[in-house]
């Protein structure tokens, strides 16, 4: 019985000491755990953003001209935007509720032609509330760049849409003459501009890739065929020109089965001649 008493007492002592140390460290551990969960929430949110939001707000939240505003915008984080809409609650709640309920009406001071859909399942959208929470955490993390004064990350893909005026190519399909294009740069642009969201990842617009299209041909092949088709209403005479027209004058000719006005109509004002040429040179390779 005596050795049991010794071992038992020792075990009690050791356990008490361990618990005491654990308790002392508990506030620090809890803080770390909380940051950990916040980090995981952003990771999950980034994936949700990629799948649902890039096609309007751009892969890096820079917005897409004519479609949806930048949401990595400093105005969102410095209070300007909240004051503009007269929001009295927290920024988190503003973002969370905007994502949950969407924007049934254009909000104060904006004239965006499209409405943001509702996202939360609570309002008939596709995302559970924890997913809305995650994507909110991801969006709010752009605020960190603003707070830390970081304007751009090294990665070109995440560079935000430039606020500087650019030398836009315009909406004429003949002038100016386009410089030679680089298909690789073109491909990168279709990702960063969000084109792929509708033309590759989904079928909001006609599929670019041969394997996704019912005809089994890619956009590069179809561009050449289209200009000679009987129902073609545009003015292009070459496949390249057809692609240029489709990008800068989207409603000149709309492929059968699609409504006019779905595709962003302002690329003529946001692309440089070089950008446009790169994109066309890439699309032409998609036979």
């Amino acid at each position: 019985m005596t050795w049991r008493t010794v071992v038992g007492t020792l075990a009690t002592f050791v356990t008490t000491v361990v618990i005491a140390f654990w308790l002392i460290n508990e506030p620090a551990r809890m803080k770390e755990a909380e940051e950990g969960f916040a980090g995981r929430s952003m990771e999950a949110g980034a994936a949700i953003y990629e799948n649902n939001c890039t096609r309007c707000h751009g892969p890096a939240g820079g917005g897409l001209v004519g479609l949806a505003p930048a949401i990595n915008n400093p105005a969102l984080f410095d209070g300007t935007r909240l004051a503009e809409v007269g929001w009295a609650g927290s920024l988190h709640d503003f973002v969370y509720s905007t994502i949950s309920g969407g924007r049934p009406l254009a909000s104060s001071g904006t004239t965006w032609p499209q409405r943001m859909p509702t996202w939360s399942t609570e309002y008939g959208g596709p995302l559970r509330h924890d997913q809305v929470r995650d994507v909110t955490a991801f969006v709010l993390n752009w605020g960190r760049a603003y707070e830390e004064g970081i304007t751009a990350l090294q990665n070109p893909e995440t560079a935000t849409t430039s606020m500087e005026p650019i030398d836009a190519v315009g909406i004429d399909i003949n002038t100016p003459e386009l410089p030679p294009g680089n298909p690789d740069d073109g491909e990168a642009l279709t990702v960063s501009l969000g084109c792929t969201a509708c033309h590759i990842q989904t079928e909001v617009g006609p599929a670019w890739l041969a394997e996704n299209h019912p005809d089994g041909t890619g956009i590069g092949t179809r561009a050449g065929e289209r200009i000679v088709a009987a129902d073609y209403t545009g003015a292009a005479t070459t496949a390249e020109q057809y692609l240029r027209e489709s990008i800068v004058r989207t409603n000149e000719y709309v492929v059968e089965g699609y409504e006019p006005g779905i595709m962003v109509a302002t690329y003529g004002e946001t692309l440089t001649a070089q950008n446009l040429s790169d994109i066309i040179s890439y699309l032409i390779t998609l036979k």
Partner: protein
Amino acid sequence: MSLFRIHAPILDDIRSDGLMPTLIAKTDEVVTRLTAGLNVEEIRSVLRGDPPKRPNPRVKPHADGFWMHMRPTYFHEKVMTLYPTFRLGWLSVYFLVFETITGLVLMLWYTPSPLRAFEDMQNIMSNVPLGLMMRDLHRLGAEFMVMVVLLHMLRTFITGSYKKPRQFTWFTGGVLLLLTLFLSFSGYLLPWDQLSLWAVTIGASMAEATPVIGREVNLLVRGGPDFGANGLLRFYLLHVFALPLIAFIFLGVHYYKVIIHGHSLPPKEEEIGEDTARKVPMEKRSYFLPDVLTKEVYWIVIWTALLILMVTVGNWHAPLEPHADSQVTPLHTTAPWYFLWLQGMLKLGDKVFWGVIAPGILVNFVFVMPYLEVGPSRRYIHRRVGLSVCAISVIAFSILTYMGTPYHAVSSSPDQEIVAALVPQTHPGPVRTASFDELLPGEYSSDKWNSAPTENLREIMETFDYEINKYGSELPGAVGIMNIVDWQVGLKKVTLSVVWNNGEETFTQNVYVHEDSKHGH
């Protein structure tokens, strides 16, 4: 001439005997009442280990006290040693109580709703002092309890303790085994993460295979075609109310039977066919006070210390995967380990036969076994058949358990397997646990893993290379590419691709890693 006269006899005693003697006498009286019969002097003599006086005053609490009445006055000294019980029955009770206590703490912070459950778990782990420890203890205790109860059953079989007159004890034990399994299983769903949802979905899919009323059983269990708010609430109520209640009732019956029949002696201690557990000669008695009680206190201390050390210095933690998502089935979903044998049986063929009929027969066999196996001898030498069947069953269950794991007969495409080895869906894996700073932006290729610039990157790419070589024959010329870019401040995007057939085929998956996320902690 006061209206009320307060009569306090203690004042009279103090007046006649003095303050100290009165206080001592009163304390003694209170202690004797609380212990239902032991005064201070006797308690001290128990603690000192003095032999009892005759007649033994230490049996009085067993007659008069509620708690002590449930425990026998003495045990046979031959069942006090580690063999034959290995204290496994006692340990099962310990864990049942342990789980009740830790579970009650967790209940304070938990809401059984899909809208809250997962968030509540995170809150318990990150915002409740000792919350993480309580959760870990509860989970660890549950794993131990299942193991201990199974081992207890195994030992009562091996020592032939299920034989006449203890058949019904075994029977109620069988009920307790089922209750233990379902307690653990119902608790599995509550964190509402991917692991919970899918493990329980796999387990519950057995219900669907029930002949004729499969659909109805399924609806009853899940509260709908799939797990949702109703199913979670049902499992919660089973877990915290219905099952514990029934378990405590059956524990009462089980232990009552154990006591009235006495703990069976080691088989060689008795003549064949005899049961002398209740006729303990004076000199072989080991009294509850103090022998059994002190041993039990000792074991409580040791086990509690062990469990606490495991979840603290031992760094054992209950998993918490991403939020439950009924749209996304993780690549390798498995049932909880104690149901893997069922998952293994399901791989043998027909769902109705292997999922419902065969296990049904097995479970029922456990219940009726002591009524069928009526050989009189408990000695090992006379029970070659029974013990061999037992050994074969243990081996068979181990094999079935292995077959239930994803290592056996699970088809999935090698490209996905390779990527899943780096960013698994069911646990963090090497990419997420790598040091954030070492994940330098850039593009890395598995065939040149050795030239990656940091230690962690080399480890990841080496694993990538290893996995690719493992499936080499299925993916000709495969190479793995990992591309890392800075995505936001503190957040990186990692793209993993497997490219094969001269670059004609690719499989790509993105994951994001945040510097704070501390996966695997």
